[in-house]
């Protein structure tokens, strides 16, 4: 087997389990454990880079938060902890979201949603949105080039020096091309019958396997563990 591939429905379950675990997390170490669990999931999907990056960034955040708790004065603590608290709640959800989007084919997603009897008026726009994400990455290369030729630096330094203009140079072309791209993607899908009410089939077979049970029970167990801590 090339990579550990899960049914999109299982992935949806993992997402929900992570959201619940994160919002009801009893302490910071538990959240760290959750992030590590997601990293293991990412590794098993062969998303090594995402796994490493996601873990390293979180560990830094974790250490930083602990340092604040121990060292900072009370007023600083109040401000920073509220801010960090929000990040800690959102981070695991964002992390697993990135892994799921990176490993799910659009056709799998559509067929799985079909099996769940989700309405097409929801799944089709959502699928187009998912498909739009990788085009942003391609757009970014062009925009970076265009900015450099206009003497605007497309990096953190440029952002700090001239924040308004740098941001404008990123979002204006993105907005301009986004509406066109979304239209063209929709056209390409409706002319190939995406609106067909029949239950669509899928070239890559989707069904529950042992791996689905395994992944789901790991995340479920971790959630239950959190209830007893």
């Amino acid at each position: 087997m090339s990579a550990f591939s899960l049914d999109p429905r299982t992935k949806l379950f993992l997402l929900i389990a992570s959201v619940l675990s994160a919002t009801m997390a009893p302490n910071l170490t538990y959240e760290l454990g959750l992030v590590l669990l997601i990293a293991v999931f990412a590794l098993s999907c062969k998303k090594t880079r995402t796994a490493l990056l996601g873990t390293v960034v979180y560990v830094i955040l974790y250490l930083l938060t602990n340092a604040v708790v121990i060292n900072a004065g009370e007023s600083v603590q109040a401000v920073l902890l509220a801010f960090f608290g929000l990040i800690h709640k959102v981070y695991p959800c964002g992390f697993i979201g990135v892994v799921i989007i990176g490993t799910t084919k659009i056709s799998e997603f559509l067929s799985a949603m079909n099996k769940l009897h989700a309405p097409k008026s929801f799944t089709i726009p959502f699928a187009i949105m998912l498909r739009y994400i990788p085009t942003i990455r391609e757009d970014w290369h062009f925009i970076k080039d265009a900015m450099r030729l206009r003497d605007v630096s497309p990096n953190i330094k440029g952002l700090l020096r001239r924040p308004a203009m740098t941001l404008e140079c990123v979002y204006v072309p993105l907005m301009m091309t986004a509406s066109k791209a979304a239209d063209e993607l929709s056209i390409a899908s409706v002319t190939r019958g995406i609106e067909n009410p029949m239950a669509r089939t899928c070239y890559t077979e989707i069904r529950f396997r042992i791996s689905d049970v395994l992944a789901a029970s790991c995340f479920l167990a971790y959630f239950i563990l959190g209830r007893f801590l």
Partner: protein
Amino acid sequence: MIKFENVSYSYTGNNSEGLEGINLTIGDGECILLCGRSGCGKTTFTRMVNGLIPHFFPGELSGRVLVNGMEISKTPMYQIAGQVGSVFQNPRTQFFNTDTDSEIAFGIENAALPIDELRSRVKQTERDLNIEVLAGRSIFELSGGEKQKIAFASVYAMNPNIYLLDEPSSNLDIDAIEELKDTLRRLKKQGKTILVAEHRLYYLMDVIDRAVYFENGRMEHIYSPDKLMVLPATEREKLGLRATGLSDIELSQAQEKPGNSVLKLKNVSVHYKKNKILKNLNFSAKSGEVIGIIGHNGVGKTSFSRTICGLHKELTGQITMNDVPLNRNALMKQSYLVMQDVNYQLFAESVEKECTIGIKEPDMELARSVLQELELSSFLQHHPNTLSGGQKQRLAVAVSMVSGKEILVFDEPTSGLDYDNMMRVARLINRLALMEKIVFIATHDLEFVCQTCSRVLYLDEEERQYEKRKSN
């Protein structure tokens, strides 16, 4: 059979590109070329056949369009999809999946074919269209031409009776166009009906049965291919049509006025992700020259263009201007890339502001005179996004002139342009040459190269890189 019965249509909130009083019957197995200037209504015509009008583009429709007995406006899109297959112009945004097999299967998945049938149809399609080498690949690593083939394959797998192609050649190189032509011939042999809306005519002349010419939303002429071929060049150009054969393109004498600045490339090699794509390039260009960069898709035209503009990092060798070596930053200051999709490089909220963005002490006088020169002065306060494609392109050129760039690189400046607009770009480029700029044009459009370039740099995969005078 496709039947248009007294059909008129206008888009909501847009007075152009509609159609008026169309009556036409297209028989099974016919291959029809839809031609005419940009905005003449040929794309609108295709949209009425594949149902995008009225299901996707709202507007005012009268008359009836019948396809194999179905009345299009009363048939849901997914049913039309089984009869009419559409292939579009932009290969980047025709995909729904990230791997080729799933993409080919996309249409037949929607039609809910059982899984064994899906597999065998995908295999059969790949065999029929000779694209077995593309099986199981990631879409993002394919060239434009290869993407187009997959888009085609996805439609082919659905086995429709009618194929609609909207400017299918605009992102293809000459070889890919030949392959497209072979595919069209194959479809014709299978008795399929084919409608192609195109500006490039030459490759279609021995495939089509009839050519329908549109002007301002009306069907003005119907030509047989023989009639179209013998149309005198002056008359053809009056109709705004491109050449019907590559051999009748006339070389226009480029107005060459070599200036004093010399750009030199010495032993320049360009890498991309550890692959050497251009090797030991030695080359020089004088100001006032217009140099075409041609070669197959994926041979490194883009990397070459980016190198000239100082945007490409991985390179060895030296680039000098008047014998002064330039590093990447200095190159970036001297040069400007006019992208194929200029939307990426327009940032400001008005035409006037666009010209001065990023410049510390902008010279408003200069900006005004440049905009005047490029016929943009009546749009000073307009938002760049409200301009037409050609105007946006001129605005990008204006930006380069205001910021004092000496080297201009155009990436496919004529993709999807009709004859009139192509000539407009050609005149713009000749004007830049007279201003003693160094101009490079990366393109597949030979007709355009003949109109503008004084020299051609031909890039080839097998480490042979020639430089040709135009005469050969």
